[in-house]
């Protein structure tokens, strides 16, 4: 996130990376508002295009140094702009939500689809998706590392232990499958946990202006998953 500030080309690239990383939560958020896949995708593209053209998030700091909060704030702003300028039909396509919207007054309430009733807080949904994205990225990184070390099967077998407990199979069974000693499996699990922990933390710290807030953000994400 530090890299992503300012007007340098480097900052552009870094911001682009971050946006790419968290494309999924944004897309899911838009989908949740009742759009179909294509419409949501198109809207997300436009949203990110605007973020990138504006050149980063140091002009204002609504998220207090958190990329997650910044992105959600920008997204809401973007959506309300969309509604105001009546670009819905052109940009968003004609989903059920949109037709409802057209029929009613041109305000935010009309855009709220059924999903809103299930979980009243759009922020919670966004944070939930965000947490999943963080985990997915950290896991993908680990998986890639194991692949590069030509040990993809180890990752597949051992990853359930990242949850704290193994699945039905015991460590001894895992050792048999992997043709290793049980002791070696234990060490591998220990290392895997540690590596995952570091991966998650570094992933999170990328989205924070102040890296010392990692623990706080981690707690927030765990709460969002509850």
């Amino acid at each position, binding site marked *: 996130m530090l890299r992503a500030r300012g007007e340098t080309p480097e900052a552009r690239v870094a911001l682009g990376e971050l946006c790419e990383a968290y494309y999924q939560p944004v897309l899911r958020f838009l989908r949740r508002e009742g759009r179909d896949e294509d419409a949501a995708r198109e809207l997300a593209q436009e949203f990110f295009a605007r973020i990138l053209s504006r050149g980063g998030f140091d002009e204002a700091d609504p998220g207090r140094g958190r990329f997650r909060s910044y992105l959600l704030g920008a997204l809401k702003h973007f959506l309300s702009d969309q509604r105001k300028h009546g670009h819905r039909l052109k940009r968003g396509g004609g989903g059920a939500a949109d037709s409802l919207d057209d029929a009613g007054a041109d305000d935010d309430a009309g855009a709220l689809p059924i999903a809103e009733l299930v979980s009243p807080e759009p922020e919670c949904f966004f944070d939930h998706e965000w947490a999943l994205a963080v*985990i997915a990225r950290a*896991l993908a990184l680990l998986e890639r590392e194991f692949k590069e070390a030509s040990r993809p099967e180890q990752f597949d077998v051992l990853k*359930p232990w*990242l949850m*704290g407990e193994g699945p039905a199979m015991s460590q001894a069974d895992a050792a048999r499958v992997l043709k290793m000693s049980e002791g070696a499996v234990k060490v591998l699990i220990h290392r895997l946990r540690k590596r*995952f922990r570091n991966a998650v933390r570094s992933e999170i710290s990328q989205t924070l202006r102040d890296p010392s807030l990692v623990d706080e953000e981690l707690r927030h994400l*765990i709460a969002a998953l509850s």
Partner: protein
Amino acid sequence: MSNTARLDSCPKCGASIPAGAPQGLCPRCILIGAATATDTGIAATATSEIPSRDRIAAAFPQLEILELIGRGGMGFVFKARQPRLDRFVALKLLPDKLARDPRFAERFNREGRVLAKLNHPNIVSVFDFGSTEHFYFLIMEYVDGVNLRQAMQAGRFSPAEALVIVPKICEALQYAHGQGVLHRDIKPENILLDSRGHVKIADFGIAKLVGEETPDISLTATGAALGTPHYMAPEQFEKPFDVDHRADIYSLGVVFYEMLTGELPIGRFAAPSSKTPVGANVDEVVFRTLEKDRERRYQSAGEMKTQVEHLSEPGVSPFKGGSISPRVVEATPGAHGAPASNPPAAHHAVAPWSQKAIWGAVLVGISLCPVIALLVFVFFVRAFGNIGGGPWGLIVLVVLAALTLPAIAGTVLGWMGLSDIRAHAGQMRGYPLALFAALGWMEMILFTLALGIAVMMAYVAVGPGPMGALLMLPVCAGAITFAVWAGFAAARWGANKPAPGTRGKLRWIFCGLLVCGFGYITLVLTLRHAQRNPEAADPVQADEATVAPPRTVPQAEADTVPRP
């Protein structure tokens, strides 16, 4: 792969795993796992990691491995035998998983080096340490006995035994501190009692050399085994990098408290004397070791040892109903942890004097002396010469007025000093002076008042009749009783002592005073009777003069005995 089949519900929390979960893993548990230190898993998995005896035997051909006798965050301890030396030893092993972690290995090596430097009868000796292909190990003295935790659970501790054990631990700590070694994890599990009653401290595993340069965070942040929360001194939480030997003193205080009461001193904990038959002097020592501020604790284990041993000395019984009752001890200002009576020299050097107490005492002393002299003088003047006219009354008024200022100032300073000393919990000198300054004038006024009433009673007894005097008697006795109570209450307050519940005593004082007063009135009436019988007057008068000199005689004499 077959074993990567999606799980429907999380094996950890049991919640169903949502469809969008990355890699089909419970997202919440996996993130919680990432938020928790990786090392906390040790304790949970330790059971399955006990190395098999065959493996150990293969690694240590020079030992006969006998049985597993303990395990903790730092490894496993086996009882073993050295056949050639025909002795038992304790073999401590680092779990092989941890042995691959350089951080743990470093801690282990540190424990060995630190322990090997210590040679004391109350510290478990280290014979050897090092590493084999699979294990990091320590070979230590085998202690045949139990640890303090087991002993406490067996319920074999009396306060007297605690008072024997604690000084031994102090001795060992003093020695280790002298070598620059802190224990940092004093707890009942680490205090061993052998079959012959010897006390030995084990596990200087987290000991850290005093004065070592910048603390290595990776060594101290591993959480799991570093320090046991209930026994840790406050500064071990707050400033873990600035811990010194006084943290051990605090931990030992917790152990001491637990030995006495069977409970941990958590929150606002009760005094040991309210839980077990010990005196307030034991409370005092325990409270001092448990001071949150380490500056207020005993400053060395040796000092603590002296104090604890002093509790067991003849004449200073630590027990209720002993040769000196706690109440008597409490009434002696010096025993309030104030330095007047018997603190060791080291303490004398650090405790400052309360300036306010000194100046307060000086002012009160200066102002009180002339007043007492004046009172005595006035009594005598009125008794022997009849100069009680104009100039004397004026002089008395002027002197009293002149003394008001130092008297008030001294009293205020005395109370401020007392409050300071109280805030320093006995770590400031001048407690008796402060008490004198704070109470001198108040008590003086109260007693004078009571005596004044007594004198008035003499008038009343011979004037309107004995019934009036009898009515005033409780007032007089009440004033004196109140003066006594106020003195002790203030002394207790200054020394941070709880109320001892001695209301009963006050009742007796009050009754005693009533009886005395009654006797006094009877005496006055007898005198009056004697006055009417001139034959009996002389012996009674002589007798009375020896009984209570300045208090009653002058008045009685002046009014009842005709002067020649």
